[in-house]
């Protein structure tokens, strides 16, 4: 029982990450009709926004400390962050400690800008091109982006911890009346789940309740007609791309304490997020979210050792197996529309 509750928690948490990435991918596909293989790279860039901000916050000048020696036996250079000089050591450390949450503020404008530039500079020329061309050009872009990041940040993962206040985990077991320690879950992951839920909710609300959103939804259904109404749908689509980039970026920022970011984390997520989107049904936002959670939960269950004892290797293939079963029973994924990317 405890094990099952725990894996459901896990599944929700994993699922929220999948859903968040898939949501951005679907926004772009649904509104612009572009298959964006660079979406994983946007997620990665988001994560590196957090890395960059924490680098900025720890920008420092060096002083020579004669009392210590470095690895070669010379007097050690000690780095003193400027924030220490400005705010004093205690406040300065606190600011550095909160680098990841602060990065949210930093990442939103950066990611929007990245999104706008990408859409205006590249993607818009590919609206009418075949999907194969879109895949190739965005895949090329993804490689370029990740190589640029690698050039500046190296290939190794870079630790970006959550603030001290969020370390450790909450004991659901004790709260629910089980023995303590049986169902524990890290605070940061709980925050991630809540954050993802808020973003997902916000995106849906935005599309549902604002005029902007209504126009975009109409555009998703029938682009030409909306264009005929004299509405500049192109500009709205650009903004939509920026939004999708921001969603991917925020997912990346918040993910950094869970897995230390590295330059290829986008590619690691890319295939998975495509599977999620397709299982949900191309172009369906609720489908993407549903599929994200479904696959997250099933993946969690497949990793239980009790399950692996019966079916060794199931954890290796569960996502793909589920994808195959769903696509064979539901031709267009869970909530896909007819005729979207079927030719």
């Amino acid at each position, binding site marked *: 029982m*405890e*094990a099952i509750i*725990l*894996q459901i*928690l*896990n*599944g929700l*948490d*994993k699922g929220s*990450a999948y859903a968040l990435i898939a949501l951005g991918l679907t926004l772009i596909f649904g509104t612009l009709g572009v298959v964006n293989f660079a979406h994983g790279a946007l997620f990665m860039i988001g994560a590196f926004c957090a890395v960059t901000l924490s680098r900025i916050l720890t920008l420092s000048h060096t002083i020579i400390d004669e009392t*210590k020696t*470095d*690895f*070669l036996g010379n007097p*050690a250079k000690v780095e003193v962050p400027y924030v220490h000089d400005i705010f004093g050591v205690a406040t300065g450390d606190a600011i550095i400690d909160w680098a990841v949450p602060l990065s949210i503020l930093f990442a939103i404008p950066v990611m929007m800008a990245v999104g706008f530039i990408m859409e205006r500079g590249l993607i818009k020329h590919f609206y009418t091109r075949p999907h194969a061309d879109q895949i190739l050009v965005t895949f090329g872009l993804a490689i370029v982006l990740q190589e640029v990041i*690698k050039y500046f940040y*190296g*290939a*190794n*993962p*870079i*630790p*970006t*911890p*959550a603030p001290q206040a969020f*370390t*450790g*985990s909450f004991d659901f077991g004790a709260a629910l009346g089980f023995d303590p*320690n*049986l169902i*524990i*879950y*890290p605070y*940061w*992951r709980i925050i991630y789940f809540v954050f993802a839920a808020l973003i997902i909710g916000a995106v849906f609300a935005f599309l549902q309740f604002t005029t902007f959103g209504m126009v975009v939804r109409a555009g998703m259904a029938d682009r030409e007609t909306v264009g005929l109404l004299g509405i500049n749908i192109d500009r709205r689509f650009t903004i939509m791309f920026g939004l999708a980039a921001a969603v991917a970026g925020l997912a990346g920022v918040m993910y950094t*304490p*869970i*897995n*230390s970011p*590295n330059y*290829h*984390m986008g590619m*690691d997520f890319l295939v998975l997020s495509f599977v999620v989107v397709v299982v949900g049904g191309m172009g369906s936002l609720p489908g993407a979210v549903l599929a994200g959670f479904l696959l997250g939960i099933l*993946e*969690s269950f497949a*990793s*239980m*050792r009790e399950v*692996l004892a019966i079916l*060794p*290797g199931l*954890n*290796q293939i569960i996502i793909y197996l589920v994808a195959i079963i769903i696509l064979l029973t539901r031709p267009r994924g869970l909530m896909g529309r007819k005729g979207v990317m079927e030719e």
Partner: protein
Amino acid sequence: MSKSNFTRRGLLKTSAVTGAGLALPTIFTAQSAHAYTNEPTGSTVTLGFNVPQTGPYADEGADELRAYQLAVEHLNGGGDGGMMNTFSSKALQGNGILGKKVEFVTGDTQTKSDAARASAKSMIEKDGAIMITGGSSSGVAVAVQALCQEAGVIFMAGLTHSNDTTGKDRKANGFRHFFNSYMSGAALAPVLAGAYGKDRKAYHLTADYNWGYTTEEAVKASTEAMGWETVAAVKTPLTQTDFSSYIAPVLQSGADTLVLNHYGGNMVNSLTNAVQFGLRDKQVNGKDFQIIVPLYSRLMAKGAGANVKGIFGSTNWHWSLTDEGSKAFVKSFGTKYGFPPSQAAHTTYVQTLLYADACERAGSFAPCAVAEALEDYEFDGLGNGKTLYRGADHQCFKDVLVVKGKENPSSEFDLLEIVEVTPVEQVMYQPDHPQMGGAEASLGTCNNGA
């Protein structure tokens, strides 16, 4: 434009003399003209440095490459000579190898066995490399080692920790300086028993591939011999990035120790996740919960940040060692590049020196002669103390370092502290040990390629 000193087959340097380009074509089969593959007949000798330059291990590969360049510099008489001054053998003169200037070519393994073999083959076929070295994973090491065996060149393995490299997949033309899973287990177990007691319940998370299997087997065997109990061992996919669903059930199992048989990115992520779950703040069975990482890589451990603090593991070498060899190496590497070398850099540097020294002692580049010079060769002064290159399986036997994540690092390189230097006797095993492929495993015969 200067004349390239990147040789193709050294042979050309001499045969190109045939009539300044207008001569009749000379036709011959590759093998018959050489005593062995890529016999260097000019004034230079080419080594092939095959390291991951793209993919997750690119930084490790870059560090290996730095060490190779340093080694070549030292071999050719440049720099301060590094470990050549402390090496017990004095055969190396600083005038290249056997009087021939050392040159090198580099390639990208991409940490994929296909790409690594393609790159190694191009070094052998195109650049005339006489020895291939490098790599940062066992899959690549085994694949390239088999290739070098076929082609008739020497392979000096880089970072490869799986038992298989010198176990069931050992080859007569391949040599490994790096330690292996068995040694990690044998070195760690007594230290762990000392630190955490003999009554522990361990939960293993194991990367689901060969290296993971051998490491789990080795650590299990040696800790169980100390009296520990293995509660469960769960395999995790290589491509896994989020280990939460594997770590969450650990406490429920009643285990009080978590062993992460993961390497590289897997290790960084699983360790980060485990610490995030607050496992180390918990008490189980009246004991503090502990996490163990059998194989540490400092470069990668950096990615886990503060999470490594207080966590035991083993490593091949560490820059904070104070023997003369290590100090000399750290000094010349640190002076040249500005930061201390990694264990991958150390092992590749040492492998290059050992190869060069073996050539000198053998008086030949012929792979079989070099292999013979390396087999059962005892040396000292290259870090890790007295070392034996065992002839039966081409594995180096030397002291193994048990390390712990440092609580108060003084710099970004100062992540690990050496807890114990396990003497070589304790990690010794028979060449036909069951974990090493048993009696079936054989080196085969050495291949000169001719």
